[in-house]
C-alpha cells in the first residue's frame, strides 16, 4: 500500500468566496488503481466558465481511490475531442482511459458541455455525452460526468453527485457554542448551514428521497426530533416526549422513523409513522436501547443495547419481538447501519482502547476494523457502498474522514476551523 498524502484542493483557494469549506486530503491510496487522464476541457464561444470541469472530474476520480490520475504537466497535448487524440502518446504515459471534452457558451450563463471517455489501447470511444448546463450548475455537471465515467469503467454507479450532512461546532468568544447542521456536496464544496443553535444539534439523517433531514435539537433545554425540508427550510417537530428523543432513522420507504425515546423510563426503540403519527414500541428492556437503523428491505432493525452488560449490536424485526445479538468480537460495538446492499454492517468498535470504524459481513460474521483513529464515530455508507464516511479527531478537533469499504483507501475532510462531526451521506439523487 502506497502513501500518497495529497492536498488535492489547493485550487479551492481560488474559489474562497465560500465560508468554512471542507478540504480533502487523501492519506492513503491503492496500488493497481486505474490510470486515467482528464484533459482540460476546451472552451468555445468566449467567456471562460468559472469552474474547471476537468479539475473537478479529476478530483472526484482520484478521491474514490479507484483511479490514478495523470497530472496536467505530464500531458504532451491537450486534445478536446477524439479526432485530436494521438493514442500512442497516451499509451506511452501508461494511461488506459482518457477523458476529453469542451464547454460551449450558448448564451448568458448557459453552456453546452460535451465529453468523451476513450479507451486508449483500443483507440475507441467508450461513451460520450452532451449536457446542457448553467454557470451555477457547472460543478454538478462535472460530478455527473465523473459518475458516468465511474460507472462505465467500474460497473457500479458513482456517488459524486451526492451530498453529505454534518454537524459543526464553533466556540465563541463568550464561551458559548454555535452549533450548525450543514449540507455540502460530497467533495465538501457548496456548504450550506440549514440549522443553527446555541444548544446541541445531533444525529442528522437523510430521508431516502434526499429531500428531508431528521435530526435532534436541544433548543428549549430538552431534546426533540425534527424533520426539515433540505430545500424548503420548513420543519416539523416529530417527537418531544419527556426524556430522550433521539437517533432518528428513516425506513427505506420514507414513511416511518425509527427513534429512541426514554419516555417509558429508559431508552427504548420506537417506530413513528409519519402519516398516522402513531408510535409503536419495538424494544422493552431496562437497558439502554438506542441507535436504530433499518435494513434496506425494511423488515428489520439493528440497534445498540447494553442488555448484556456492555453495548453490542442487536437485530430485531421491524414488528418487534425477540432481539438477536449480532456482534461478539469486541467489548463495545455501537451505532450500526447497513450497507446499501444489506450485506454488511458498519459500526463503532472499541479496538485496543480506541474507538474505530468496523464492518461486519452479516453472512459470515467476520468483522474487520477499517479506521485507525482514537475516537472515530458515526460511520455512514456512500449510497453506492464503496466508501464509509465517519467522524474522527485530529488532535482535539473533529474532522470527517472516509475509508473505502475494503479498508484500502483513506481520506480526511477537514474544516479550516471549528469542529465537524456526525456525517451522514445522502442517498442518490432521485
Amino acid at each position, binding site marked *: 500500500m502506497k502513501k500518497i498524502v495529497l492536498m488535492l484542493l489547493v485550487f479551492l483557494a481560488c474559489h474562497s468566496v465560500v465560508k468554512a469549506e471542507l478540504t480533502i486530503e487523501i492519506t492513503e491510496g491503492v496500488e493497481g488503481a486505474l490510470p486515467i487522464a482528464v484533459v482540460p476541457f476546451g472552451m468555445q464561444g468566449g467567456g471562460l466558465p468559472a469552474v474547471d470541469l476537468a479539475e473537478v472530474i479529476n478530483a472526484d476520480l482520484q478521491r474514490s481511490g479507484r483511479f490514478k490520475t495523470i497530472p496536467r504537466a505530464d500531458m504532451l497535448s491537450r486534445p478536446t475531442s477524439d479526432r485530436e487524440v494521438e493514442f500512442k502518446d497516451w499509451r506511452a504515459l501508461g494511461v488506459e482511459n482518457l477523458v476529453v471534452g469542451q464547454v460551449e457558451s450558448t448564451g448568458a450563463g448557459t453552456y453546452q458541455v460535451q465529453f468523451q471517455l476513450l479507451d486508449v489501447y483500443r483507440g475507441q470511444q467508450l461513451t460520450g455525452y452532451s449536457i446542457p448546463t448553467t454557470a451555477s450548475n457547472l460543478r454538478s455537471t462535472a460530478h455527473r460526468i465523473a459518475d458516468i465515467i465511474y460507472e462505465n469503467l467500474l460497473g457500479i454507479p458513482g456517488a459524486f453527485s451526492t451530498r453529505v450532512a454534518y454537524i459543526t461546532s464553533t466556540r465563541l468568544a463568550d464561551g458559548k457554542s454555535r452549533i450548525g447542521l450543514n449540507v455540502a456536496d460530497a467533495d465538501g464544496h457548496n456548504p450550506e448551514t440549514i440549522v443553527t443553535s446555541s444548544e*446541541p444539534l*445531533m*444525529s442528522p439523517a437523510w430521508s431516502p428521497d434526499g429531500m428531508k433531514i431528521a435530526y435532534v435539537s*436541544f433548543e428549549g*433545554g*430538552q*431534546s426533540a426530533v425534527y424533520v426539515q425540508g433540505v430545500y424548503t427550510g420548513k420543519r416539523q417537530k416529530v417527537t418531544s416526549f419527556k*426524556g*430522550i428523543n*433521539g*437517533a432518528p432513522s428513516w425506513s427505506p420507504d420514507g414513511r416511518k422513523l425509527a427513534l*429512541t425515546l*426514554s419516555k417509558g423510563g*429508559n*431508552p427504548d426503540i420506537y417506530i413513528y409513522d409519519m402519516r398516522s403519527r402513531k408510535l409503536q414500541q419495538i424494544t422493552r428492556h431496562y437497558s*439502554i436501547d*438506542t*441507535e436504530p437503523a433499518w435494513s434496506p428491505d425494511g423488515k428489520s432493525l439493528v440497534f*445498540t443495547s*447494553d442488555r448484556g452488560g*456492555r*453495548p453490542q449490536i442487536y437485530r430485531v424485526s421491524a414488528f418487534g419481538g425477540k432481539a438477536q445479538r449480532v456482534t461478539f468480537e469486541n467489548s*463495545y460495538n*455501537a*451505532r450500526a447501519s447497513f450497507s446499501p446492499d444489506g450485506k454488511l454492517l458498519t459500526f*463503532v468498535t*472499541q479496538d485496543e482502547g480506541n*474507538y474505530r470504524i468496523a464492518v461486519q459481513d452479516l453472512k459470515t460474521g467476520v468483522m474487520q476494523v477499517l479506521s485507525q483513529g*482514537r*475516537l472515530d*464515530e*458515526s460511520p455512514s455508507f456512500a449510497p453506492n457502498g464503496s466508501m464509509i464516511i465517519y467522524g474522527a*479527531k485530529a488532535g*482535539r478537533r473533529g474532522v470527517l474522514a472516509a475509508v473505502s469499504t475494503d479498508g484500502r483507501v483513506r481520506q480526511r475532510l477537514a474544516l479550516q476551523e471549528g469542529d465537524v462531526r*456526525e456525517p451522514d451521506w445522502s442517498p442518490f439523487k432521485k
Partner: protein
Amino acid sequence: MKKVLSLSATITLSLLLMIGCSSTPTTEGGAEVSEQSTGAGSEMGAEGSEASTSAASQGEEWYGDPLENPNSLLATRVIYFDYDQSVVRSDYLEVIQAHADYLAANPQAVVRLEGHADERGTREYNLGLGENRANSVRSLMMAQGVADNQMVVVSYGEERPSAFDNTDEAMALNRRVELVY
C-alpha cells in the same frame, strides 16, 4: 447503600440545622428549618416577607439562602462518575442527601438533573448513559422523600463538555450530573 445514606442523613441533618434561613423563604418547610436553627428565623416574621435583612455570615453560620451558602454541601452541584458507570459513588451520598433534604423542605423548589458523558463511545449511546446517571441521582433523592415533580431529568450525553482536553482528567470532569436550581 441504604445504610450509608441513613448514616449520612444524620450528619447532613445536623449540618442543615446549622444553616439559618432568612431570605426568600416562601414555604413553611423553609421556616421550619430556620426555626430549629440559630434563631435567625426571627427575621422571617409573617409569611416570609420579601424584605429580609441580609446578615453577614459569621463563621459557620449562614443567614442567606441555603443554596448560596458556600460552606454547605448544597454548594456542591456536580456529581462525578466513573467510566461507563452510572452508579453514584459513595463519596457523593452526603451531597445528594443534602440536596434531597433541601428539596423535601422546599416543595416548591425544582432541580434540573443534567446528565453528561465523556467523549468516548457513540453520541446517542452517551445520551442514554447521561440519562442513566441523572436517573441514579433522581432515585436516591426520591428515596429521601423528594417529590417526582421537583426533578427534571435531561441528558446531554457528550454534547456539552465542561472540559475540552482529551486527557483522562478532562474526561473525568465530563462524566457528571449537574444539579441546576
